[in-house]
């Protein structure tokens, strides 16, 4: 039996971004962006679910993000996660990878009882690939990045095939271990229709608080109790729920600062227009031949 914690992230769809979504302090105004489930994280969730199906155990998905990140936690439930956690607080905003991994590692310590931590190799918004290794460091456990395949799993040891520069290697690690996973390792399963019906109403504390704001007859504590009973509560952790130093969170706890952001301005091109005809292309080839590039 193996328990897994999966780190998931809601990311802006970087294909649909304009310069306007940058705030004056250089951080990203995520509320202005279409948001999606980071694909490599979804792949890691699939891997964790496969281990659970084969060996038994529990899969817990956690994310740090703004309130609307509960969208991807519901998706985790639709796929088969047993438990989900939203780690959300205004004080976490503007976090770089160091501040993010600090909060995640403290949440993981609180959840406890895990054999594996899974994460995507990197998120498409920053492409840094840093949060996985930094979380492993803070938990003082080994990491295996660039996972391509689980070769073997026995007792407290796992063998992994991982990518290296120019090839691959097979490594064996003692558990617990943090694995970061490449995109093509497994195909994430589609949502189960049954689970969508069961969990589409799952709500985080923040979402329940919103309900009570709209209806004075409702009380948060009662709602939380009720949603927990119905297994529809998205566990919600704020700075108050975690044993953390707020100075190490968010923008404050981030050593990297965005000093300057420039929209990409292109030097206006002084290129020579070539007709898309055989004659036009022929002239271009002549030119390249006289420049000794061709021929």
């Amino acid at each position, binding site marked *: 039996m193996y328990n897994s914690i999966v780190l998931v992230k809601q990311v802006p769809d970087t294909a*649909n971004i304009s310069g306007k979504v940058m705030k004056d302090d250089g951080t990203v105004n995520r509320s202005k962006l279409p948001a999606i489930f980071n694909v490599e994280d979804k792949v890691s969730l699939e891997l964790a679910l496969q281990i659970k199906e084969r060996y038994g155990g529990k899969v817990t998905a956690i994310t740090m993000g703004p309130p609307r990140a509960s969208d991807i936690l519901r998706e985790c439930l639709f796929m088969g996660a047993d438990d989900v956690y939203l780690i959300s607080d205004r004080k976490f905003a503007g976090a770089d990878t160091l501040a993010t991994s600090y909060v995640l590692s403290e949440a993981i310590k609180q959840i406890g009882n895990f054999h594996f931590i899974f994460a995507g190799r990197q998120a498409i918004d920053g492409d840094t690939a840093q949060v996985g290794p930094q979380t492993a460091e803070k938990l003082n456990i080994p990491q295996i990045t660039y996972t391509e395949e689980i070769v073997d799993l026995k007792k407290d040891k796992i063998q992994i095939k991982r990518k290296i520069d120019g090839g691959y290697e097979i490594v064996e690690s003692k558990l617990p271990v943090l694995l970061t996973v490449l995109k093509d390792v497994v195909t994430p399963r589609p949502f189960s229709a049954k689970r969508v019906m069961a969990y589409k109403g799952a709500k985080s504390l923040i979402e329940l608080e919103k309900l009570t704001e709209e209806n004075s007859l409702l009380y948060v504590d009662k709602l939380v109790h009720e949603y927990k009973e119905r297994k529809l509560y998205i566990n919600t952790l704020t700075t108050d729920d975690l044993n953390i130093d707020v100075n190490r969170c968010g923008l404050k706890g981030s050593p990297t600062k965005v000093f300057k952001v420039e929209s990409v301005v292109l030097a206006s091109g002084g290129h020579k227009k070539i007709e898309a005809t055989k004659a036009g292309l022929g002239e271009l080839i002549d030119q390249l031949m006289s420049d000794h590039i061709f021929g």
Partner: protein
Amino acid sequence: MEFKNEVWVFIEQRGGKPADVSFELLCKGNKLAETMGGILKAIVIGSGTDEIAKQTFKYGADEAVVIDNPSLKDFRTIPYARILQNLVKENIPRIVLFGASIIGRDLAPRVASHTKSGLTADCTDLQISDVKYLNENHSKLLLQIRPAFGGNIIATIITPDVPTQMATVREGVMELCPLDKPKKEKITKIEYKPEPIDDLVQIIKQHREENKVNLKAAPIIVAGGYGLGTKENFRMVEELAHTIGAEVAGSRAAVDAGFVTPDRQVGQTGVTVRPKLYIAIGISGAIQHRAGMQDSSKIIAINSDPEAPIFDIAHYGVVGDATSVIPQFIEAYKHKLK
């Protein structure tokens, strides 16, 4: 705060061979150290590393710090990270640079986390500058410059409040420039003290293939993008490359779509190239792609969209559909060569 003006470069090896990116970073590190009025140290971890340590002086190292032990022969995260983080804590270098390779991207975050240093991934430029940030003056900070968020912006990252500034850089981004006269050799050996945690992960087997693709050395490159539409259309790019004796490359979108293998990706998260001629077909020209090819001597852009940003850096522009332009190009080329 007063800092030691030391620049460190982690010298990476793969199967006992030093990685090009490490020497490229020494060249850049040498320039940064000069600007800061500091010194450059090469950090060499491995087994049987004498030759590699000696080579670092040719690329500007003032000192090679060597940690040599048979159990360090192959890279493993924990022992390498422990060695580096202890060195960083004891010596507090101002800058530490890593290749943005699989090893560098595995190691650097771990070391940065332990030492609470700032770390910026995949920088496309590094500069030293005095900076005024939030009304405070900081002298000689490292500007860590990288495209971000889909390439719509270029961000300059700084880490003003921590002693050590760390960055990773992809292979080929910085130029390799060996010194005419190597610096005087100074090698400092440091003993490796193993800990039980170092052996939690063991390497069972390693398999490496000589990299068959060498885009960096190719004088002519023909690159295709997502605009080609299908894998079949991408074959025409390969045919053109074959005809004119060029290497084939692709944009990240083309790699993601499966048109071409990842080892042929040009751009910020791929290879940086500087060929004599770069032909970009069906590539819109996002900043991440341009970061990897804009220093090419001559650029031909072929694209059906006359507004595509690739035309702004091209020397020659052909507006037209790739599936009709490529065959005409091939035919014209064959005709001229007759």
